C-alpha cells in the first residue's frame, strides 16, 4: 500500500512538472458586444494513465501575480469558455479593466478495481497553467455584423413610404382578394340575421407580441363593422394587460362607426392567464352563448384546435389568422377560412381599405420580391461554391 502511494505521488509530481504552463491558454475580447465578455481557448488538458482530474477551473485576477479568484468550474474535456460579466455580479468581469487568467487542474491518483474507478482524493496535486493577460473586455459602439439589417430596414421603410404616398395621391393599387377577409362581412351578416354575437379571440399572448398588436388593429376594424350592424362582440382575453387595449380597440371601432352606445364593456372579458383555464372559459362561452361567428386572430398554441373544434361543433362560421406555423394546420382543418402568415398581418390594411395602409402592402410585396431574388441568387452562388454573397447577409 505504501509503495502504491509512493508511485502515485511520484506520478503526480511528474504531471505537475510536465504539464504546468503548457495549455496554450489564449484570452481574447469578444468583439461587437456590450463589453462584458472575454473568450478563452486552450488545448485539451493531458490526462496521464492512472491519473484522474479531480477539479478543473478557471481563475481571474486583476494583477498578474494575483490574487486570483475562481470564475467557474470546467469539465476535463472543455477547451473554451466565455467569461461573461453581463449579469453584473460584484465578482463579474467589468468593461475596460485589465485582467489576467489562468487554469487550475487538481490531479488525483486513480486505481481501477474491476469495473470501478477508485480515486485517491486525499493526495492531490494542483497544477497551474500559464497566466495570460492583460486583456480587457471592450464595449463596441457599432456591431458591423448587423449593419445589413439596418440597410434592409431602411429600404423596406422607403418602399412603404413610397407606396403609401402614391396611394394617398389617389393612384390605384391592386390588392389580391383574401377570401378569409372578404368573408368577414358574410360572418357579421350571418350574426346579424341570427341575432347572435360575434366572438373575437385575440390569441394567448400579451401586448408585447406583434401578433397581439396586429390583432388589436384588426379588432378595431371588426368592432366597427359589428357596431354598424348592431351585433354584440365578445372578446375573451388571456392576458390581463390586453384588457385596456382591447377595450380601447372596441370602443374606437364603435366610435368610428358613429355608434358609441354599441360598446359594451361587459363583453371584454378577462378569463384567466392559464392556458387551459382560458380554453375552458372560451369553450363555455361558445357553448352557452352560441356566437354565430368565431374569429381567432393572434398567437395561438395548443388551445387552437380545442377552440376551433368546439366552435365547429356549435355551427358557427369561423375565420382564423395566425403566423404560428405549427397551429396553422389545425385552423385550416377546423375553420372555414384561415389567414396564413403574412395575410394575417395584411388584414388590418385590407379591411380598412385606407390608401396609406394599402401602400404598405405594396411595399411588403416588393421587399418580398427582393428577398426571393436574394434567396435564388444566394442558392445559385452557394451551389457553385461562391460564399461571398451569402456572407453579406450573415448577422451576429
Amino acid at each position, binding site marked *: 500500500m505504501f509503495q502504491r502511494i509512493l508511485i502515485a505521488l511520484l506520478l503526480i509530481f511528474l504531471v505537475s512538472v510536465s504539464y504546468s504552463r503548457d495549455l496554450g491558454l489564449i484570452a481574447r475580447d469578444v468583439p461587437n458586444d456590450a463589453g462584458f465578455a472575454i473568450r478563452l481557448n486552450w488545448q485539451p488538458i493531458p490526462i496521464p494513465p492512472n491519473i484522474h482530474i479531480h477539479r478543473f477551473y478557471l481563475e481571474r485576477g486583476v494583477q498578474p501575480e494575483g490574487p486570483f479568484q475562481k470564475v467557474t468550474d470546467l469539465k476535463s474535456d472543455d477547451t473554451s469558455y466565455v467569461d461573461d460579466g453581463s449579469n453584473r455580479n460584484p465578482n463579474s468581469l467589468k468593461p475596460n479593466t485589465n485582467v489576467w487568467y489562468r487554469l487550475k487542474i487538481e490531479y488525483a491518483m486513480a486505481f481501477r478495481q474491476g469495473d470501478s474507478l477508485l480515486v485517491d482524493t486525499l493526495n492531490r496535486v494542483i497544477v497551474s497553467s500559464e497566466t495570460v493577460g492583460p486583456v480587457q473586455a471592450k464595449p463596441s459602439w457599432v456591431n458591423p455584423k448587423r449593419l445589413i439589417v439596418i440597410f434592409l430596414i431602411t429600404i*423596406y421603410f422607403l418602399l412603404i413610404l413610397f407606396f403609401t404616398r402614391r396611394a394617398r395621391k389617389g393612384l390605384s393599387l391592386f390588392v389580391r382578394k383574401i377570401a378569409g377577409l372578404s368573408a368577414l362581412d358574410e360572418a357579421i351578416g350571418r350574426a346579424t340575421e341570427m341575432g347572435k354575437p360575434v366572438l373575437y379571440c385575440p390569441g394567448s399572448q400579451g401586448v408585447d407580441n406583434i*401578433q397581439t398588436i396586429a390583432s388589436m388593429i384588426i379588432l378595431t376594424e371588426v368592432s366597427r363593422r359589428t357596431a354598424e350592424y348592431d351585433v354584440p362582440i365578445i372578446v375573451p382575453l388571456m392576458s390581463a*394587460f390586453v384588457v385596456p387595449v382591447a377595450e380601447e380597440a372596441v370602443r*374606437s371601432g364603435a366610435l368610428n362607426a358613429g355608434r358609441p352606445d354599441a360598446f359594451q364593456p361587459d363583453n371584454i372579458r378577462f378569463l384567466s392567464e392559464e392556458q387551459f383555464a382560458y380554453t375552458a372559459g372560451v369553450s363555455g362561452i361558445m357553448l352557452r352563448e352560441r356566437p354565430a361567428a368565431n374569429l381567432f386572430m393572434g398567437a395561438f398554441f395548443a388551445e387552437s384546435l*380545442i377552440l376551433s373544434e368546439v366552435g365547429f361543433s356549435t355551427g358557427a362560421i369561423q375565420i382564423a389568422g395566425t403566423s404560428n406555423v405549427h397551429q396553422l394546420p389545425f385552423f385550416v382543418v377546423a375553420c372555414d377560412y384561415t389567414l396564413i402568415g403574412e395575410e*394575417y*398581418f395584411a388584414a388590418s390594411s385590407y379591411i380598412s381599405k385606407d390608401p396609406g395602409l394599402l401602400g404598405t402592402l405594396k411595399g411588403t410585396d416588393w421587399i418580398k420580391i427582393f428577398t426571393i431574388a436574394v434567396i435564388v441568387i444566394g442558392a445559385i452562388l452557394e451551389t457553385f461554391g461562391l460564399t461571398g454573397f451569402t456572407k453579406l447577409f450573415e448577422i451576429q
Partner: protein
Amino acid sequence: MKREIPLAILLITGLFMIFQYFVPHYAISDIASKIQQWAIIITSGAALLGIANLLRVSLDQAIARKQDWMYKWVVIVSLVVTGVSGIVGGIEPGTFFNDMIYFHMYTPMASTMYATLAFFIASAAFRAFRVRSWQAWLLACTALLVMLGRIPFGKMIWGDFPQFVDWIMNVPNTVAQRAILIGAALGAVATGLKMIFGIERSWLGGGD
C-alpha cells in the same frame, strides 16, 4: 395632443429600440434593458386590471341573475378562495393553495382539457381527409405516407420508407414552413414600422 404625445412616445421608444440592436455598447444596452424591465413591471401590475375586470363582469351578471349567473358565482368564489389561500397560507409545497388547489384541482382539470385534444385531433383529421379536391387528395396521400413511414410496418413494406418520410418532412415541408415564416416576419416588420412611424393609427382610439 391626445394623439401627438402617444405617437411621439412610440416613435422615440421604437426608434431607440431599433437603434440599440445595432449598438451593443453597455451605455445603450443598459437603457434598453431598463425599458424592458419597466415593460415587465407595468405588465405585472396589469394583473390587477384583469382581476378588476373579471370581478366587475362576473359580479354584475351574478347579482342581476342574468343568463348562467350561477357559473359567475363559481368564478368569483374560486377567485377569492384561490387568492386568499395563496396570500394568507403561502404557495410553498404543503400549503392548501399548492397541494389542494393547484395540484389536486387545477392540474387535473388542465390535464383533462389538454387530453380532449386527442379526440379533437381525430375528429379534425377525419374531416381533413375527406377527399373532395386534388389538394385534399395530395394532403391525404402525404399524411398516409408519413404515418406509414413513422411505424414499423412502413419499414417492413420498404426498407427506405423512414428515410423517404424524413425527406418529405425535411425538404417540401420545411420549404413551405420557411416560406410562411419569411412572409410572416416581413408582415410583422411592416406592422412595427407602420406603428412606429404613425402610418397605422387605429390603436390611438377614436377620440380627438
